[in-house]
């Protein structure tokens, strides 16, 4: 690759010819501030609109200042990143941005995780220099999962890039012009009326508090403190691999046992595990897969645990509604079992039970509100807290998370195998299903339960897995843009896969829209570390295949009967509805 010589803040260096000034500065360990700029997942997704101008630098011989994020280097270029002119411009730009921003940081949920606030601190914008017109939008709360406060929007359009380029959902665009331009759905439609899947990737990339998960904290506190309610909490596999980060831990550690103690101290009556239901999901899903495989059913079969993915195909691939598995997600299976089997076992009126989920996800809030997911006659799940929300509750309650002693989940709905842990990572559901399917097909225990060939960080992977001399072709996609490619293959009849796993968020649930905020530059690395922690959790489990979970076996014996049988269908399976594509 050809190189050029540049001088940046008196440091001379060689950089690739096609580098931007921003990239060149990174090589010289000079940090140029950015705001609208976004690079995600090893630069597969880039927002380079150069609209905020915070990254401006001075280039010798150039009349105006240059935006570092989108200006390419040239040979013998001399760049100054913190000259008086640069610093003054940045401060004015910030003051202009702030002139139409609420400046209500004390009451903003994003406070402490807001890039605009960070910049205001960095450039000590000590006064409100420009008084002008202010936006006055009503807060948009139409959906069950995401709330929009456009008064806080700085029009960086990072959300639009995440939604349209990475996820190919295509809900967001700049609508209108000039001061009145908003980033939102076509025709200013409320989010609820669009094909938004609530994956929450827009919330993750929003530099301010304009996009938020809808909070369930208050109703959960109310339920906990209501003596007439029995409040169950279930925790998704991915939460344990990230919750520690909220309390200052380095990424890459699971905090399962402290989390159990923390939830007990918050006041939940029973601390259960979505993992239990993940094992149950494998019983149903692997059985359904074998059924389709052996009885000439619809192939490939697609997994259905991700509610964002389910809504995606309901909108975008209405002709393929028979392809996904009919299994409910683990969160919903848990609720259905808790309000039937468990309630009967303990002689509790199911109407008194409140099921609270802790999820790495915002779409789970939407899923919990889907009317048809109510097989006991009550909604399977009542409230959903994101990883960020449970951390907030722990801080509110003054619980010193890092010094908590280890705790154990309650049984029977708290016991799980390694097959359940790996639901947190892209490829995990597929691997857990293979662990069971292979043993059922061969009738022999597996020599190793590790299917390394389905693991990895790439957003789109495929593998052939030999079982009893037959090749099972699997594909794995994380990120809906990748999923779309697999679906288009199926639509055109060119798909040769038997089993496809799809997760809406890059990296799977560990990278979910409800997980702790991470600087987007490091997100790929953080997701990898969280994934490794999950695989370590799996490897540390005594039992690693879902079908060997003794409490699951007990559940079928005492209550459900056969996997994929009549009662299982009634409680654990669902159907899909074609939805309009706005």
């Amino acid at each position: 690759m050809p190189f050029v010589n540049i001088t940046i803040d008196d440091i001379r260096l060689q950089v690739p010819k096609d580098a931007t000034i921003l990239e060149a500065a990174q090589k010289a360990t000079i940090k140029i501030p950015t705001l609208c700029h976004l690079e995600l997942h090893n630069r597969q997704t880039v927002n380079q609109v150069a609209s905020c101008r915070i990254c401006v630098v001075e280039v010798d011989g150039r009349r105006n200042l240059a935006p570092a994020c989108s200006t390419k280097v040239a040979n013998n270029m001399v760049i100054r990143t913190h000259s008086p002119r640069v610093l003054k411009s940045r401060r004015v730009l910030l003051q202009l941005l702030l002139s139409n921003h609420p400046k209500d940081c004390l009451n903003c949920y994003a406070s402490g995780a807001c890039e605009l606030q960070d910049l205001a601190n960095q450039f000590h914008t000590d006064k409100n220099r420009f008084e002008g017109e202010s936006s006055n939008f009503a807060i948009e709360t139409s959906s069950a999962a995401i709330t929009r406060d456009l008064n806080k929007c700085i029009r960086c359009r990072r959300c639009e890039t995440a939604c349209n380029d990475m996820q190919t959902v295509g809900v967001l665009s700049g609508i209108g012009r000039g001061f009145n331009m908003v980033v939102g759905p076509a025709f200013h439609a409320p989010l609820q009326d669009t094909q938004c899947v609530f994956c929450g990737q827009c919330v993750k990339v929003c530099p301010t508090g304009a996009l938020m998960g809808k909070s369930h904290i208050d109703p959960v506190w109310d339920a906990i403190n209501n003596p007439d309610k029995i409040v169950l909490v279930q925790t998704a596999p991915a939460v344990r691999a990230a919750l520690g980060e909220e309390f200052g831990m380095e990424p890459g550690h699971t905090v399962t046992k402290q989390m159990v103690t923390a939830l007990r101290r918050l006041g939940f009556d029973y601390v259960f595990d979505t993992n239990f239901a993940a094992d149950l999901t494998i019983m149903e899903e692997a059985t359904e897969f074998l059924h389709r495989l052996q009885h000439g059913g619809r192939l490939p079969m697609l997994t259905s645990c991700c509610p964002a993915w389910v809504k995606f195909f309901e909108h975008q691939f209405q002709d393929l509604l028979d392809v996904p598995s009919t299994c409910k997600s683990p969160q919903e299976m848990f609720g259905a079992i808790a309000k039937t089997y468990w309630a009967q076992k303990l002689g509790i009126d199911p109407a008194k039970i409140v099921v609270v989920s802790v999820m790495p996800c915002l779409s789970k809030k939407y899923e919990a509100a889907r009317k048809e997911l109510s097989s006991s006659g009550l909604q399977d799940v009542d409230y959903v807290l994101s990883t960020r929300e449970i951390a907030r509750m722990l801080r509110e309650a003054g619980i010193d998370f890092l010094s908590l002693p280890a705790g154990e989940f309650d049984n029977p709905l708290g016991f799980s195998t390694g097959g359940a842990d790996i639901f947190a990572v892209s490829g995990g559901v597929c691997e857990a299903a293979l662990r069971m399917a292979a043993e059922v097909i061969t009738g022999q225990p597996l020599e190793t339960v590790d299917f390394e060939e389905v693991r990895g960080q790439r957003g789109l992977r495929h593998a052939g897995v030999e079982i009893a001399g037959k090749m099972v072709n699997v594909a794995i996609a994380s990120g809906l843009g990748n999923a779309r490619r697999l679906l288009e293959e199926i639509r055109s009849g060119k798909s040769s896969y038997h089993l496809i796993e799809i997760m809406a968020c890059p990296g799977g649930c560990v990278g979910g829209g409800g997980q702790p905020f991470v600087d987007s530059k490091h997100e790929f690395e953080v997701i990898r570390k969280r994934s490794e922690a999950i695989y370590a959790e799996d490897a540390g489990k005594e039992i690693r295949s879902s079908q060997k979970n003794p409490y699951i076996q007990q559940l079928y014996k005492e209550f459900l009967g056969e996997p994929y049988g009549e009662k299982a269908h009634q409680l654990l399976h669902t159907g899909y509805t074609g939805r309009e594509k706005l």
Partner: protein
Amino acid sequence: MATAKHSSAAATAPATPGADTAKYQQLEAFLTGLKVDGADLAGRRAVLIPALHRAQEIFSYLPTEVQKFIAAHLNLHVSEVNGVVSFYHYFKTKMSGKHTIEFCLGTACYVRGAAKLIEKAESMLKAKLGETTTDGLFTLGSLRCVGACSLAPVVQIDGKTYGRVTAEQIPAILAEYQK
């Protein structure tokens, strides 16, 4: 047993109201004639503005359904299409009346009483500037200097210019178009 429910795949062609069928056919013929390569996103984006121009010629404005129709045909997100439509003043999202009344708001017309003319017309027609009367006869708009300042204040109806207009003359002028 729970099964997947099929709904008819009506994603590509939104319901076309009976009276507009011919217009939609005209638009469809135009879009088909563009022969855009489905795999070429830049190419599909490049024809969006010409497609919107043609659609506005056919329908006189760009209602929601037409924007969806174009998005489906060009395989673009509706949000992107609506983003372009809402960016350019030229594109109209509301149906215009049979006649367009435009009041000049240039400096000369303004100081010589354009506001009074607008007030009179608005109260007579029960529609505000930018709106269309309920009978669909008039759309009220404003324009900047037409270069006839000596005739201020100026009103244009369907491009015909009226000069030195007074509020008292407005009923008679409108009556010409209300026949």
